[in-house]
C-alpha cells in the first residue's frame, strides 16, 4: 500500500551492515528474512523451469497448432491440442467477473469506511470476510445447484432486450455458460477486492477530508476529491489480486461450466472452457503425455498471470507520480 504524504519522507536507511549492531539475534534475523526472500525466487524459478521443460516436451509432438487449435485431444494418437478456446474463456469469464465485482466492491468499501455507522461497519466487514473463507467447491455446488437454475429467467430477459447485440443471445436450456461462470467468480473475488480497498480508503488522510468538508464539499464530493484519488492505486492492486484468483479458479468453474471446444461470442450459451477447468477435467484420465500437454496450458496461464500482474504494477507506478499532487 502506498502511503505517500505531503511532507517529503526521509529515504529509509539502506539495509547495510551499518544498521546491524552485530548482535546474534540481529544477524540471525537478517539471515532468515534474506533466506525467505531468496527462497521465494527459487521456488518461482523452479516452477517456471518445471513447467517449461514439460511443456516443450508436449508441444514438440503436438500435431495441431498450440495457439489456434480448438480441440483438446492430448491423449489421442497423434495428439492434437490447442489453447484458443481456453484463452478466450479464461479472459472473458474473468473480465465479466471484474466488471461486476470491482464497482460493487468499491461501493461496499466506501460504505464501510465512510457511510456506515460504526455499529454496522464491523459486522459487514466480517460477513465479507466470511465469503472469502468459503471453499471454492462449495461455491461451485452453489453455482451448479442454485445459481444455474435461477438464471434462466434473467438470461431470457437479456435475450429479449439485448439479444440484438449478438453476444447476449440465449437459446434456452441450462445456462451453464461463461456468463454464469463470470457471475460466480464475481462473488468469489468480491471479498478480496473489498477488503484491500477498505484498508486503503480507511487510510485516506483525515486532514484533507476535513479540509474538503470545511470548504463546503458534500460527502460525495469529499469521496470524489479526497478519498478515491488517494485510494486509486490501492483499488487497482486489489482488483489485480481478485483477477488473479478469477483467472486461476478451478473447481467452481469445472462444476458450473458446460465445457466444449467451441469458441463463441454468445456468452450466455453453454460452451467454452478455461485453463484451470480444462486441467481439472482432463487430468484424471490423462496419460503421461496428456499431463505434459496440460502443463503446457498451465504455463500459458502462468504467463498470462505474470503479464496481468506486471501491467498492474506499471499502472500503479504511473499513478504514483500523480498521487503526490492528489493525496
Amino acid at each position, binding site marked *: 500500500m502506498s502511503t505517500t504524504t505531503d511532507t517529503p519522507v526521509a529515504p529509509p536507511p539502506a539495509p547495510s551492515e551499518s544498521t546491524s549492531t552485530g548482535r546474534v539475534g540481529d544477524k540471525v534475523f537478517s539471515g532468515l528474512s534474506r533466506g525467505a526472500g531468496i527462497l521465494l525466487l527459487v521456488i518461482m524459478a523452479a516452477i517456471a523451469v518445471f513447467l517449461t521443460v514439460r511443456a516443450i516436451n508436449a508441444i514438440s509432438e503436438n500435431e495441431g497448432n498450440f495457439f489456434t487449435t480448438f480441440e483438446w*485431444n492430448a*491423449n*489421442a494418437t497423434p495428439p492434437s491440442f490447442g489453447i484458443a478456446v481456453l484463452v478466450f474463456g479464461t479472459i472473458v469469464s474473468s473480465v465479466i467477473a471484474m466488471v461486476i465485482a470491482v464497482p460493487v466492491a468499491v461501493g461496499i468499501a466506501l460504505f464501510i469506511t465512510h457511510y456506515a455507522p*460504526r*455499529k454496522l*461497519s*464491523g*459486522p459487514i*466487514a*466480517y*460477513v465479507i*470476510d*466470511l465469503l472469502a*473463507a*468459503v471453499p471454492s467447491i*462449495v461455491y461451485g*455446488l452453489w453455482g*451448479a*445447484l442454485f445459481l*444455474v*437454475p435461477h438464471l434462466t429467467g434473467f438470461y431470457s430477459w437479456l435475450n429479449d432486450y439485448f439479444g440484438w447485440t449478438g453476444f447476449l443471445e440465449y437459446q*434456452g*436450456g*441450462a445456462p*451453464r455458460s461463461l456468463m454464469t461462470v463470470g457471475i460466480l467468480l464475481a462473488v468469489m473475488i468480491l471479498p478480496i477486492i473489498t477488503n484491500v480497498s477498505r484498508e486503503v480508503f480507511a487510510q485516506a488522510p483525515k486532514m484533507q477530508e476535513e479540509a474538503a468538508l470545511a470548504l463546503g464539499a458534500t460527502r460525495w464530493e469529499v469521496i470524489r476529491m479526497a478519498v478515491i484519488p488517494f485510494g486509486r492505486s490501492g483499488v487497482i492492486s486489489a482488483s489485480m489480486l481478485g483477477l488473479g484468483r478469477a483467472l486461476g479458479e478451478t473447481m467452481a468453474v*469445472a*462444476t458450473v461450466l*458446460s*465445457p*466444449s*471446444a*467451441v469458441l463463441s461470442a454468445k456468452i450466455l450459451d*453453454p*460452451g467454452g472452457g478455461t485453463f484451470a477447468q480444462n486441467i*481439472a*477435467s*482432463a487430468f*484424471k*484420465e*490423462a*496419460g*503421461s503425455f496428456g499431463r505434459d500437454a496440460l502443463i503446457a496450458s498451465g504455463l500459458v496461464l502462468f504467463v498470462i498471470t505474470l503479464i496481468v500482474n506486471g501491467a498492474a504494477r506499471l499502472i500503479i507506478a504511473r499513478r504514483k507520480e500523480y498521487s503526490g499532487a492528489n493525496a
Partner: protein
Amino acid sequence: MKLQRKNRLRAVTLGAVAVSGALVLTACGSDDNAGGGGDKGNAGAASKIKCAGEGQLLAAGSTAQKNAIDQWSKDYSAACSGVTINYQANGSGAGIEAFNSGKVSFAGSDSAMKPEEVAASKKICKGGQGVNLPMLGGPIAITYNVEGVDDLVLDADTLAKIFDGKITKWNDAAIKKLNPEAKLPGSKIQAFHRSDESGTTDNLTKYLQAAAPKSWKYEPDKKWPNQSGQAADGSSGVASQVKQTAGSISYVELSYATGNEIPTAKIDTGAGEPVEASTDNASKAIAAAKVTGKGNDLAMELDYTTKAASAYPITLLTYEIACDKGNKAETLKATKSFLAYAASEQGQSSLVKLGYAPLPAEVATKVRSTVNSLS
C-alpha cells in the same frame, strides 16, 4: 481502535455461528452413493474368507470400481487382520501405468489391457505377463427428466441420434414410435455428457458404435467425441444436472440414477420386451459375452447387439489386472487371497446393493480358477 476491537469480537462470534451453521447445512447436502450397509454379513464373511499373506496390498486404477473394492476391502480386512488393502482410485489409465511400473500388486481397469500395455507388463511379470480378470460389471443407465413421462423406451439408433444432436425434440417421430402411449412434450432435448474423460463415456460410445453404426460415426473414446449437448463434470455432476433440468437426458452408472431418484429408460434391443437397466439384466449381458483373451487372460467382449431376453446391452465390464506368473513374491499370497474373495460367491453377492452387476456363475468360476493359478 477500541471500538473496532469490540466489534471485531462480536463479529467473530457471529461469524463462528454462521460458519458452523453452514457446515451443518453442507453436511446434509452431500449425497453418498457409496452408502449402503456392508456391516451385514461380516460375521459370516469372517468364516469363509481364506486369509493368506500379510502386510499392505497396494492397488490402483478405475474409479468405477472404487465402491466395490472398498466394500471388499472392508469385509476382507475384518476377517484377515494381517492384510490392509490400499486401493487408489485414480483412473484406469493411471492404474495400468502404476502396475506396469511395478508400483502396485494389481490394477483395476474399465477396459482390457491394450497389446502395447501387455508387452510393457512383461518387464514386471518375470516369465509371465499381465492378465485381465473380469471382476464386476455394471449397467450404464440412460437417465432422463421429462415431465409426465415415467416409462420411456429408447433404442440404440434413437439414442445415437439424440446424443449426436440429430433428434432435438422430445416428440420426435422416432421417440413417438417407441413410446406410443406416452405424452411426449414438444420441448427441446437437453443431452448431457461427461466433461471429464471417463470409462463410462468409453463404454457408452462403444455400445453406440456397435449397435447403431449408421447413426453413430464416432470412434469409441473416453472423451466425448462431438460438440452436441452440454457437458458436466463427473457422474454426480451429470446426475444433478439431469435432476434439475427439464427435458434432459444423460448416461450414468446405475447407482447414481437410483441414488438421485432419476428415472431410467428401458432399451429396446429387439428382444420382445424392452430391457430395464438393472444389475440382474447387466449380469445377463455379461453371460452373453465371449472370452477373447488367450490362456490365463480372461478379457471379454460384450455383445452390444445381443437380443437375449432381458440382457441389458449398455453394460460396463471392469477387470483386475495381475501377473499370471512373476507376481511380487511378498504380496503374492495376499493378492491371490483377496482376488479369490472378490470373485467368490460371497464377494460377488455383496455387489448388488452397491449397484454393480455380479459376474455370472460360469464366468466367476473361470476367474476363480485363474486366480488360483497365479504365481
